[in-house]
């Protein structure tokens, strides 16, 4: 499989590199396919390779000792799965699992460090990506701490809504619960409540947002 330079350019880390520079670093990357449901990274393991999503979606999550799952994010094309352990040389703080068929692009830790030394703009971009990830985690803590559960479920619907064509997220009620930090039954009740208010329609295999503005108001009022 050949790695596309256009894809490397779409990775925020490397977006500042010229086509010639990207051609130079291209041989340092490998590509592999992963099946739906396959666990790509496990919490506690050492990572000496940084993985980026080239195609598909990957669930980033933590699991409690009792087996409860908390989804931290869904990684999409261009996003890294494990920059934290690769940069601090610690263990994976999270698990990563393919939500569907996924193609990954990877680079060894030492090769990445060489790129960062050679291209300071890439190092600056890396800081930016890590800062954005920190911001996203702060928002998650804020949501879990202060937003009521109906607001959290509603925010998930708005965040993952697509136009029905192309790549639209598919989520189970269990996955929504793991994102919202609640039980599946609570998500089911929240969806039913939104449906009874006429704000969404629960159809076969689809949740249709009928009143986006009203949902945005629920999220706004829940914080």
């Amino acid at each position, binding site marked *: 499989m050949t790695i596309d330079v256009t894809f490397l350019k779409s990775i925020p880390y490397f977006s500042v590199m010229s086509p010639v520079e990207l051609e130079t670093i291209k041989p340092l990357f490998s590509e592999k396919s992963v099946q739906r449901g396959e666990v790509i990274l496990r919490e506690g393991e050492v990572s000496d390779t940084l993985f980026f999503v080239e195609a598909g979606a990957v669930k980033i999550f933590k699991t409690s000792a009792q087996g409860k799952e908390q989804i931290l994010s869904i990684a999409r094309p261009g996003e890294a799965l494990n920059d934290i352990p690769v940069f601090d040389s610690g263990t994976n703080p999270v698990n990563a699992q393919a939500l569907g068929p996924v193609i990954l692009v990877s680079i060894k830790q030492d090769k990445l460090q060489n790129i960062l030394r050679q291209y300071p703009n890439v190092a600056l971009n890396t800081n930016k990506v890590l800062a954005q990830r920190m911001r996203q985690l702060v928002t998650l803590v804020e949501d879990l701490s202060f937003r009521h559960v109906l607001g959290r479920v509603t925010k998930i619907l708005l965040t993952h809504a697509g136009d029905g064509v192309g790549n639209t997220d598919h989520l*189970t009620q*269990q996955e929504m619960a793991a994102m919202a930090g609640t039980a599946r*039954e609570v998500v089911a009740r929240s969806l039913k409540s939104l449906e009874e208010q006429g704000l969404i329609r629960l159809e*076969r295999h689809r949740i249709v947002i*009928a009143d986006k503005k009203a949902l945005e108001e629920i999220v706004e009022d829940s914080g």
Partner: protein
Amino acid sequence: MVEMPEINQDKCNQCGLCVTVCTCGAIVIEEEKVTIIETEDCHWCTNCEAVCPTGALTCSFEIIVEE
């Protein structure tokens, strides 16, 4: 092709709870394996996902905004 709930055979322990709650008869156990039959009668109640003790059965939703 009719979209149907998905079964992960690696996680399934053939307990049969999903068969008992399925109101349209779409889930059967054949040769000690849970099998899902395509049918328009499945209206995505998600009861099978709710009772599955191993998380083997999943009913995913596509979330879309009405135009």
